[in-house]
């Protein structure tokens, strides 16, 4: 797999996260007090994500100019590929393991990220838990 096709696959997988979240009501409930605009995704092309009451109401790779966001969590395509493995390798199994090893960066105003840390860990792990649906 080339780097370009790898990035394309990562973006394709990311685009399925809103539907996966809708199919995971317990996670929506966990985020019921969360309203936040943020950036999540590949390091060079993160998605702009609007979350209201725990649900993703907007998820776009091509936002309007000068869009505001509170925090971003971006990782390399390699990091996302490894993070979504059914049994991820050591060091690639957690969002903060990725930041520690330099495969991801978290930036901005981190309050919503930290108040809902397990929500974001679980949200971004949804493709791992639904590998068959993602591949479909």
């Amino acid at each position, binding site marked *: 797999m080339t780097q370009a096709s790898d990035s394309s696959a990562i973006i394709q997988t990311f685009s399925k996260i809103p539907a996966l979240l809708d199919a995971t009501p317990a996670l929506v409930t966990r985020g019921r007090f969360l309203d936040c605009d943020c950036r999540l995704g590949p390091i060079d092309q993160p998605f702009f994500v609007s979350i209201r009451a725990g649900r993703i109401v907007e998820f776009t790779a091509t936002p309007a100019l000068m869009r505001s966001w509170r925090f971003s969590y971006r990782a390399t395509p390699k990091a996302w590929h490894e993070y979504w493995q059914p049994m991820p390798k050591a*060091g690639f199994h*957690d969002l903060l393991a990725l930041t520690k090893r330099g495969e991801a960066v978290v930036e901005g105003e981190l309050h919503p990220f930290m108040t809902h840390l397990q929500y974001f860990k679980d949200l971004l792990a949804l493709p791992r838990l639904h590998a068959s649906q993602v591949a479909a």
Partner: protein
Amino acid sequence: MNGQIESIVGRYVHVDIGGELHRIYFEENGAGIPLVCLHTAGSDGRQWRHLLADAEFAKHFRIIAFDMPWHGKSNPPASWNGDEYQLTTARYTATIRAFCKAMKLDKPVVMGCSIGGRIVLNLAIDHAAEFRALIGLEAADFQQPWYDTTWLNRPDVHGGEVCAALVSGLVAPQSPKATRDETLWAYKQGGPGVFKGDLYFYRVDGDLRGKVETIDTSICPLYLLTGEYDFSCTPEDTRRTAASIPGACVTVMEKLGHFPMSENPAQFRRYIAPVLAEIAKAQAPAKQGVHA
């Protein structure tokens, strides 16, 4: 089985630490070589319940796990005025030695995890002759920080939720859901600022780089075991530490993270059983050792 009562017994002992009596909660099981177990930062002695209940280990060891002051069922001391709690190397070392003295333990084995693993190294540096063997789980002389601890105790962030969410990534993905959740539950129950205060020892006061070289394992054997999924204290951190301690035994534990004894007790048993067998055999050469 309905109605089963475990063999673990919990009691309180009054311990003089720094001139003040502390009411310390401990649980124990078994008879033989005293084996004192130290919990991780921000948690309590419940992490050791599977080891405590292990009938085979209990034949050869008096297994004891106590809650540090401010943790679990060991309240803060009566003199505490609400100031920020901060664990120091000196305070932690004094607490362990005071507990062992109050319990009249004869050259105990001490096994600690995370901050407990770090303090085990300090016991080996300064007090090796008091102990039969020392076991450090997820132990190193220093680890690179990976988050800002101020997030752990501030009024606009739920302390229990953020503490548990931070350490959740330190549990190996192979660990069973029930024991993973139980491990995290203790973090959700900790007192405000206690996890952060423990990490003062870990991050600020307890840097043992340049000191572990003085450890003499001929006085007291030292075993270091670290889970492969621990990205806080990595296997590389432990190997680097052990490289400057002649005679230190290092084991990297597969499919385990930062909380081996609680996150996956069965997998941890595979690694700790040979260590305990070796310690038992060394202490009682004429008797039969522990069978893993």
